[in-house]
C-alpha cells in the first residue's frame, strides 16, 4: 500500500475517529462555536468551559465528518483540556504548521510527538481543511464568535 496513505490513515487516527474523545454536549459551556466545511458539508460544534484563570477547564465536540476531521477534533480536545488559552494558541499554531507541511515552531517535544500522527495530512493538500476545521472552530469559540468556516 501507498506509504502516504498508510501514514494518513494510521491506527491512532482511525482509533480517534471511531472512538472520539470528549464527544458530546458540554453542560455549562462558556464558549461555543459551530464550524462548517462548505466543500463537503461537514459540521462540527466545539464547546468550552474557560475558567477565570483563562484555562480550558473542559471541552467537548460534536459533529459528523470524515475520519481526518473527527480524529483531528478528538486529538485537539485531548490536547487542549486543562491548558491555558495562551498555550492552546501556541499548540494550534504548531498544528497548522504541521498539517500544511511548514516548519513547526513553538511546540515542546511532548506536544510535537502527540501531534505527529496528523503529519501525514500534509501529503494530501485537498484534505488539510478537514484537519483544521475543529481547530478553527475552537479558536472562533475562544474569540466569542459563533461560527467558523474552514478557511
Amino acid at each position, binding site marked *: 500500500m501507498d506509504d502516504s496513505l498508510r501514514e494518513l*490513515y494510521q491506527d491512532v487516527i482511525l482509533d480517534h475517529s471511531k472512538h472520539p474523545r470528549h464527544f458530546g454536549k458540554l453542560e455549562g459551556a462558556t464558549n461555543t462555536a459551530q464550524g462548517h466545511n462548505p466543500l463537503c*458539508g461537514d459540521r462540527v460544534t466545539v464547546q468550552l468551559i474557560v475558567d477565570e484563570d483563562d484555562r480550558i477547564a473542559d471541552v467537548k465536540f460534536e459533529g459528523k465528518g470524515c475520519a481526518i476531521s473527527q480524529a483531528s477534533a478528538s486529538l485537539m480536545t485531548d490536547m487542549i483540556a486543562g491548558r491555558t488559552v495562551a498555550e492552546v494558541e501556541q499548540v494550534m499554531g504548531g498544528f497548522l504548521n504541521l498539517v500544511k507541511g511548514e516548519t513547526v515552531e513553538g511546540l515542546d517535544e511532548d506536544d510535537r510527538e502527540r501531534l505527529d500522527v496528523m503529519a501525514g495530512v500534509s501529503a494530501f493538500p*485537498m484534505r488539510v481543511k478537514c484537519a483544521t476545521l475543529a481547530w478553527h472552530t475552537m479558536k472562533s469559540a475562544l474569540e466569542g464568535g459563533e461560527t467558523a468556516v474552514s478557511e
Partner: protein
Amino acid sequence: MTAQTKIASAFDPVAARADFEILSKTVYGKPLVYLDNGASAQKPRQVLDAMRDFASSEYANVHRGVHYLSARATDRYEAARRTVQKFLNAAHEDEIVFTKGGTEAINLVAYSYLVPRIQPGDEIVLTVMEHHSNIVPWHFLRERQGAVLKWVDVRDDGSLDVEAIDAAIGPKTKLVAVTHVSNVLGTVTPLKEIAARAHAKGVPVLADGCQGAVHEIVDVRDLDVDFYVLTAHKLYGPTGIGALYCKRALLKSMRPFNGGGEMIREVTRDIVTYADPPARFEAGTPPIIESVGLAAALDYMQSFDRAAVRAHEHDLLTYAREGVRPFNWLRVIGDAPGKAAILSFEADGMHAHDLATILDREGVAVRAGHHCAQPLMERFGVASTTRASFALYNTRAEVDALIAALAKARKILG
C-alpha cells in the same frame, strides 16, 4: 457474453480511448481511471485540434469586422449554432443562444423570462434532485420578488412521479424547472409527459440538460420542453460555453439579460433598441474559440452510433451495480429504472472524502461531496455521497479497478 459482443461491434470504447490523450496518463504510478465525468468530461484530440486550428488560421472577433478573418470566424460561430440546433433537433437555429455554461443559461431564463412575469405568491415547481444551478436562481426570485418554491419529492429509488409534478402545478405556477438527468442519482425524468401536463395548465417547462444531453439522445421538439440547457464541458467540449434552447416565440418575447455590444440594434443618448434573438442575449464578445470546440465535440459524439454508446454506458452501470452488490457495507442511492450511468453511494463508517482519497491513490478519480445538490442529500439523509459517473470511453476493466479500490478502502478504513 453475447450482449457484450454485440455492443462491442457497434461501439468500441477502447478505440475511442485513443482519442483522449489524458486517459493514457498515470497518477501515483497507477493507470488513471477517470470516473468523474459527471463533473467534467475529458476532451478528445478532435476537439483540441479544432480549437487550435481555428485559432491559428481563422480567428477574429465575430459579427463586427468586414475583413476576411472576421467573416470566417462569424461563419464558424454561426455554424456551431447550427450544430447545436441539429444536436437537439431544434426547429430553428435562432432558438439557440450561446451562454458561458449551463448556469448562465438558467440565470438567463430567470432574469429574461421569469423576473418580469412573477408576482409575490407566484410559484416555481422544481424537484428535490435539482443541481444548485437549477435552484439558486429561483431562490433569487423567492428572496427578491416573493416567489414560492414548490418542491416535488422523488420516490425512494430516485425516480420521479409525473403525477407528483402534475399535482404541484397550480393556478399560480409560472414555471416548472426540472432536470433531465440527475447528476447524483442518474434518474432520467419523464420530460415529455411533464411538458404535456404543464402545458395543459399553460405552464412552460425548463429542462436542465447538463447531464441529459450527455447520456440521452435529445429531441427538444419531441420532448416539447420550452427551455433546454446544456454545457459543453460535460459533452467532451471546452469549458466556458454552453447553450440555451428556447422556443422561438418565447425567446422573442423575452427582454435581454446582459447589456453591451453585439446585442443592440441602435444606441443613442436617449434610447436603445435590441437585436433580434439570439444576438439579443449574447452581449459582449462571445466564447468564439469555444464555440468551435463545442461543435467539434458534438460532431465527435455524433460520429458514433449514439444508441450503441448509450448501451455501452448502461452496460458499465449495470456491471458496476452488480460489482458493488456483495459489499453489504455500501448503499447505492438512486436505482430508478432506465437511469443514466451515474452511481452514487454511501458506505458504513466511511466518509465519502476518506473513500475518495483512498480511491484516488489507486488512480481512480471519483467525486465525493454533496454534488451541488444539498436538498437531495437532505432527502436521503446523507451529508455526502461518493459518485462514479461514466463516459463513453470508460471500460469494464475500469469498473473492476473501482471495485478493487473500494475493497481496499474497506480494508484500510473498515
